[in-house]
């Protein structure tokens, strides 16, 4: 009896998954628990394991396909077993799916490095001019790309460069020593989400400097009396941001069509850098949690993120994000909002420098630059500035958090 392998639901809000690299091919023997294929949702990368023992009889979803949750991905059964792929899946659904696939097929073929139909002369011309054939619609027989198409594309690209216009296809020069690597599923998701954010949310970034002497003292104190855990500045900032958001709830919000949703819960996302990518696991109800709880949450989430073990639910539901690049000696930057959140806090390094204190004396203090990017559709500068000022106040004098 064949077993249908379906797209799992990896989180409450997951609706579909993107098929990545197949680890097994049709005809391969598989054991229960063997990884069949990599998948990516808009939040995370994961894998689908075989639920049965036998032979991979059919791959239904190709690399690059988006499959809805519970959609058929593959079939595992006994060797030589005759399978009827339609079984168990309503006919209409299959039709719709395959129709969608057919419609997408040419695009996928081109972008996934499949065969591009171009004349030998067109290929040579493109290589010489550094024109990417995959972006060209051919005018030859059956859509074949001919030299004329490459030349006009080359001219368009040239014109675009000279006009400084980005909307024409970008020409990627490829030299002989260059390494060409296909985009990973995660890079594609990051690319899509970052582009979408920059395109749909008008970003404003405001910056300020905070004297963090007292926060440093607080952290040292907490770490000296707690041997079982080490508090990081990120942990403290999670707590401070959450407390500030509780006081300025309009910055803890999302835009949804014609409405602004002001979230009751305050869930702080923490950006975690991976070898080739970025994940933002979420510390839930950070305003109600003590620092210890926050610290153990972030520690666990970061470890899981680096081991690619996060579940979908740990990646969703954020209402605000903190991205800390202080460890890389960055002072300030312009973070991109993690939609549908309203704002993101960029944290710079702590640097000791001379400042003028309230007594007009030049003293040495530990300073940190904060960068807050916010969605101008939801908030205006004054409101965002209030939030940033409050966080700055907490950093300069953590006792204010009790107010």
């Amino acid at each position: 009896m064949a077993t249908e392998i379906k797209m799992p639901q990896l989180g409450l809000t997951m609706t579909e998954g993107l098929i990545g690299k197949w680890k097994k091919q049709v005809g391969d023997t598989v054991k229960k628990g063997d990884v069949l294929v990599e998948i990516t949702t808009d939040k995370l990368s994961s894998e689908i394991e075989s639920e049965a023992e036998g032979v991979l009889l059919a791959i239904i979803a190709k690399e690059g396909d988006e499959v809805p949750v519970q959609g058929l991905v593959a079939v595992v059964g006994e060797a030589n077993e005759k399978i009827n792929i339609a079984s168990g899946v309503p006919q209409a659904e299959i039709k719709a799916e395959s129709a969608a696939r057919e419609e997408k097929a040419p695009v996928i073929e081109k972008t996934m490095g499949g065969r591009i139909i171009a004349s030998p002369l067109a290929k040579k011309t493109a290589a010489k001019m550094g024109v990417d054939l995959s972006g060209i619609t051919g005018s030859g027989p059956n859509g074949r790309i001919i030299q004329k198409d490459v030349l006009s594309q080359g001219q368009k690209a040239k014109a675009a460069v000279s006009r400084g216009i980005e909307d024409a296809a970008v020409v990627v020069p490829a030299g002989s020593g260059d390494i060409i690597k296909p985009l990973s599923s995660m890079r594609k998701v990051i690319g899509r989400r970052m582009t979408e954010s920059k395109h749909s949310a008008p970003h404003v970034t405001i910056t300020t400097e905070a004297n963090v002497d007292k926060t440093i003292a607080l952290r040292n104190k907490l770490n000296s009396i707690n041997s079982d855990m080490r508090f990081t500045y990120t942990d403290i900032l999670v707590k401070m941001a959450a407390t500030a958001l509780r006081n300025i709830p309009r910055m803890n919000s999302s835009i949804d069509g014609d409405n602004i949703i002001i979230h009751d819960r305050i869930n702080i996302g923490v950006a975690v850098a991976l070898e080739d990518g970025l994940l933002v696991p979420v510390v839930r109800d950070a305003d109600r949690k003590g620092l210890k709880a926050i610290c153990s949450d972030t520690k666990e989430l970061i470890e899981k993120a680096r081991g690619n073990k996060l579940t979908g639910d740990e990646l969703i539901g954020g209402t605000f994000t903190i991205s800390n690049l202080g460890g890389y000696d960055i002072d300030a930057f312009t973070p991109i909002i993690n939609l549908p959140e309203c704002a993101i806090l960029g944290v710079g390094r702590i640097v000791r420098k001379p400042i003028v204190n309230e007594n007009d004396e030049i003293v040495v203090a530990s300073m940190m630059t904060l960068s807050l990017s916010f969605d101008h559709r939801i908030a205006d500068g004054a409101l965002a500035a209030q939030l940033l000022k409050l966080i700055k106040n907490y950093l300069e004098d953590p006792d204010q958090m009790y107010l």
Partner: protein
Amino acid sequence: MDIGNKKIMVIGGGPGGYVAAIRAAQLGGEVILIEKDRIGGTCLNVGCIPTKALLHTAEIYEEAVHGADYGVIANVRLDFAKAQERKTAVTNQLVSGVEGLLAVNKVKVISGVASFISNDTIEVKAANGGTETIKADRFIIATGSVPVKPPLPGIESKQCIDSTGALNLQEVPKTMVVIGGGVIGVEIATLYSTLGCKVIIIEMQNEILPMMDGELTRIIRSKLALKGVDIYTGAKVTGIKDEGAEAKVAVQMSDGRSSVFSCEKVLISVGRKTNTDALALDRAGIINDRGRITVNDKMETNVKGIYAIGDCTGKGMLAHIASAQGEVAAENSLGHESVFDIRTNPSCVYTNPEFASVGLTEEMAKEQGLDYLVGKFPLSANGRSLIMGGDGIIKFIVGKEYKEILGVHILGPRATDLIAECALAIQMEGTIDEIIATIHAHPTISEAVREAALSVEKRAIHMPNK
């Protein structure tokens, strides 16, 4: 799309018209074909096919004459009446074959001469004088061409023949003057000179076969000379005089001197003109330039629903162009999108050895100011060619930067068949790399095509690369 149930009227049943008719029928049109004479037109009846049938006799005759070289000793005698009989048999078989194809495709064939009455109606005059008026949704004009009779003094002399006459001679003349060194003149010169006739070609231009690559043309010219064909270029016929058994042809030579040649037959092969007089194009409002119907690359005339293809457009005048255009016109007439592309059109001359060409000649590449490279391979270095006792040369003209194939010129045995590979390469925008990467069978003449491509980069295997 607008398919089927349309009445398509094809005027003329030559290689353009019958192909258009069959294609239109395949696409669901109701097709009527009007032919004034025999199906197959000039090509099948008085052109391509009969010429090649007689040339094949000439080829066998020549091989037989030189049979001793191959170890076959025979007492060779030409039976020209038999050759003509075979030519007629071949022609008849092909004509009835086309008639069968038209019948299978349910094309209604009407015998008669068509004239436009308006832009949607024609009148057909049958041979017996009866007339019939027919309306149609679409017209495809494919009335072809006829030989030009230049206004020369004495052109009506009984010794003067056109290509049709030359193909129907009952015996081989002893002497013949060919006026016009184009494809027709050179092929008939090849035919009769091989069969023992003394042939003199008079060409007004500076070279015979002016559309072919000059370098190879000079080789074929010397081969003709070796067969005893005298060629005078830059020479102008001033008059023909009927002197009973012979005619005297007066010629002003390139150096200004006058010469007179006596001959049994004078072939007038100075060109062909469109055969559109009977059509009354003006009544349908079809724009034409002295009978040459003006068309675009979809084969549309200025009148919606009326198409013209082949020789009657006055361009190309080759059977395979007419056929290709016929398919284009049929497809467009039934709502499909199709355009005619001349780039891959091969030109073939049935000399001995054969001469075929596709794309740009070296002269054209120069004239267009292109940066090009040339690759050449002599067929004397090709095994199969040597076996067949033939020689010649293959010449590639390729773009300097990308090595794309701009033109290929072949002089040698079966050149007319070999050229197809090169036409395909041009159609595909191929470069020499694709020709080189393709394995060519051994031992064939096609190996030399690859060698010529290799020689562009000076890496031919079977000859020293200079």
